[in-house]
């Protein structure tokens, strides 16, 4: 039986990186069908069809599935579930909303944040905020799981799968979309960025956070933050990296004025290269940093911006 991969679609745009990395994670399970749900998703369906490893794209053209409405999308997935042994998606806000509901409706245990698919029944996942890795075997007849995509290499776009229209039960009538308040940014998206510059409590104020953003823009990077920086109002909620924020693994992660608490490391320790700038040479962040610079960030960051 094939794998059903539920694609994140926002405002008609495919979260290509998340889908392509999930494809890489499930490659060993066989044929993969990608579900693109929501009216106006033609372009997203066409884009998904180009990803290698996809054998078919299922496109559900209905307004009920727009805006990530979990109730209606889950009903659609359950409707399709009969033909699949594995139902999965990237561990994004979208799928964390939809897939647990699917699992509950199918009465199976959801396996969240899988970091490896060992075989058709066996998965690896982090526990205790990434301090341990657990291997679990599922005896459910259908596996519903989310994939932590950070460490997977995205499938390339050399495929050409067919796009097939599918019907579903439509509006589940349990919820209605009211409005989305979107934060728009020209910077790369945090979880797929190649470079991330993050600031912590050491940055000191919302105004000085401009320094972090300035360095990020110099490097074409996304901006991240520690929880302390978010709690203090220096940075918005969706920039938080860590156990209760986003999990990232860019090529380069620059931590500035961040001490390196275990809950922060949980979100970035798989980055390829870690740079830390901190004035305290004992800061635990230096224990995971490839390059550490003991310096006052208010001197070092402007100098970096000027010299890059």
């Amino acid at each position: 039986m094939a794998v059903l991969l539920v694609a994140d679609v926002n405002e008609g745009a495919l979260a290509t990186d998340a889908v392509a990395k999930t494809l890489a994670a499930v490659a060993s399970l066989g044929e993969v069908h990608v579900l693109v749900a929501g009216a106006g998703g033609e372009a997203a369906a066409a884009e998904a069809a180009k990803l290698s490893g996809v054998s078919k794209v299922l496109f559900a053209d209905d307004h009920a599935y727009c805006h990530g409405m979990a109730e209606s999308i889950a009903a659609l997935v359950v409707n399709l579930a009969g033909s699949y042994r594995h139902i999965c998606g990237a561990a994004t806000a979208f799928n964390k909303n939809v897939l647990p509901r699917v699992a509950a409706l199918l009465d199976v245990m959801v396996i969240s944040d899988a970091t490896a698919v060992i075989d058709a029944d066996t998965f690896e996942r982090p526990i205790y905020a990434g301090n341990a890795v657990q291997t679990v075997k599922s005896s459910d007849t259908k596996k519903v799981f989310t994939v932590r995509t950070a460490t997977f290499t995205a499938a390339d776009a050399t495929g050409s799968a067919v796009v097939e229209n599918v019907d579903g039960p439509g509006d589940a009538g349990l919820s209605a979309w009211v409005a989305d308040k979107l934060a728009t940014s020209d910077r790369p998206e945090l979880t797929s960025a190649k470079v991330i510059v993050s600031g912590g409590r050491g940055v000191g104020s919302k105004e000085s956070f401009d320094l972090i953003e300035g360095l990020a823009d110099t490097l074409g990077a996304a901006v991240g933050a520690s929880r302390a920086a978010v709690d203090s109002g220096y940075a918005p909620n969706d920039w938080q990296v860590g156990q209760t924020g986003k999990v990232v693994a860019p090529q380069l992660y620059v931590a500035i004025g961040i001490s390196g608490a275990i809950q922060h490391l949980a979100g970035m320790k798989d980055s390829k290269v870690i740079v830390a700038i901190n004035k305290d040479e004992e800061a635990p962040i230096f224990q995971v940093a490839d390059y550490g610079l003991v310096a006052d960030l208010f001197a070092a960051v402007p100098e970096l911006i000027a010299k890059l």
Partner: protein
Amino acid sequence: MPTIVTVDLRLNEPRYASLPNIMKAKAKPLIFKTPADYGVEVTPRLTVMKTVEPAGRKAGMKVASVDELIAKLAHEAGVI
């Protein structure tokens, strides 16, 4: 209908129980139920095969200046 809502952790300040309410709570009856009373089957369908410590990350080096940092990132790590 019953609804489950998840919230951002900074949504609000939790309402802590006051001492008089903690005292009052002690006098409330406690009713014990099992999942079976509600017709719920809770036998786990996941078996833990093993739990291991992830590969640790080794500390790298300290650089002495911004210039050295840029040089390392450009020539050694090749990330900028």
